């Protein structure tokens, strides 16, 4: 009986560790699916955290994503919300570590090696080849954002006005963006 009790206590101690490892591992796997624009990973994330692991409900996932959009920083911070709902503060930390740290280490290592290759002719040629692709991607990002954010006369007018302000004045972006939010709120109510 005593042995059984000890075993049960052991399981109780180990189970949270396994739960946190599952959380971190799931987001680690999802982070490697974020290739070129993170939004593509959302459907798979929903399958994992709602349908497979039941960490959050469908509604909570949508609410969590909305909150992450309202919060500064990467929109993938939605993992903080999911992690917290699953296993409290430890869960939030495990989810954040899994989502951000491994891919960041990879980026830093690649940036490091790239930095030491940079002056070679081949590397220069690769950079020359990649630069227009990056510019095209940035333009495509503007397109995608415009398609989702400009949906009526008010949002179209705000986008156009913001464009003129950014061109004409050297205001910090946040000032213009918050002012636009205020204008939209007044126009909508």
């Amino acid at each position: 009986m005593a042995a059984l009790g000890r075993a049960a206590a052991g399981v109780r101690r180990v189970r949270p560790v396994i739960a946190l490892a599952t959380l971190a591992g799931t987001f680690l796997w999802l982070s490697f699916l974020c290739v070129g624009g993170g939004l593509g990973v959302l459907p798979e994330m929903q399958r994992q955290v709602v349908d497979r692991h039941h960490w959050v409900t469908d509604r909570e996932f949508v609410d969590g994503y909305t909150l992450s959009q309202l919060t500064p920083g990467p929109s993938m911070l939605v993992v903080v919300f999911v992690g917290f709902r699953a296993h409290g503060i430890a869960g939030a930390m495990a989810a954040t570590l899994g989502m951000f740290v491994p891919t960041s280490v990879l980026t830093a290592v690649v940036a490091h090696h790239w930095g030491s290759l940079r002056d070679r002719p081949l590397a220069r040629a690769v950079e020359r080849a990649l630069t227009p692709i990056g510019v095209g991607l940035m333009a495509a990002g503007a397109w995608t954002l415009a398609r989702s954010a400009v949906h009526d006369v008010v949002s179209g007018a705000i986008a156009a006005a913001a464009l003129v302000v950014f061109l004409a004045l050297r205001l910090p972006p946040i000032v213009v963006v918050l002012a636009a939010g205020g204008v939209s709120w007044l126009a909508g109510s």
Partner: protein
Amino acid sequence: MRRIRLLPLVLELAWTGLVSLGGGRAAYFYDSLVVRRGWVSSDQFVQDLTLCQILPGPNFSNLAVALGYRLGGWAGAAWGLVAILLPGASILLALAMLYAAGAFSPSAGALMHGMGAAVVGLVIVATGKMVRASLRGSRAVVVATLTFLAVGPLAVNTAIVIAVMAVVSAWLHWAAPPPASAGSGR
């Protein structure tokens, strides 16, 4: 490689992370590090941006790490990540706690729609500056236009587009390399 002292670098990244609301976050980094501070050139920024889109992981954190590494080495990369994650993660954790307590249910209301629309203006301006500063020659314009059309209006998977266009672009640039003299600047 240009080195920036760690404290101002981390503060700048943290501030940029903290004020980047409403999507289009690369444009905020462009505005702060290229336009305002002048710590990285437009070309360097575009190279890091492309690198981050090729590598797996959330683009925004990858970009902070790549720019952090460029400006501050390993410490810049590590603290760059912390700088853009910690403020947002703390805020979101607090919101998650309030949410769990049943304090509120969020809605993407008029405020957020207005902010998103304004960021469209910011992203277009940043893209325009990038085009002017970093696109040189007709081959580059062709590659940038094709990439834009494929990823934007045609909505082809980004990873596939980058893979295909990298080959096309390398071939175009190899087929007719620009007149480069020994020791020329770029």
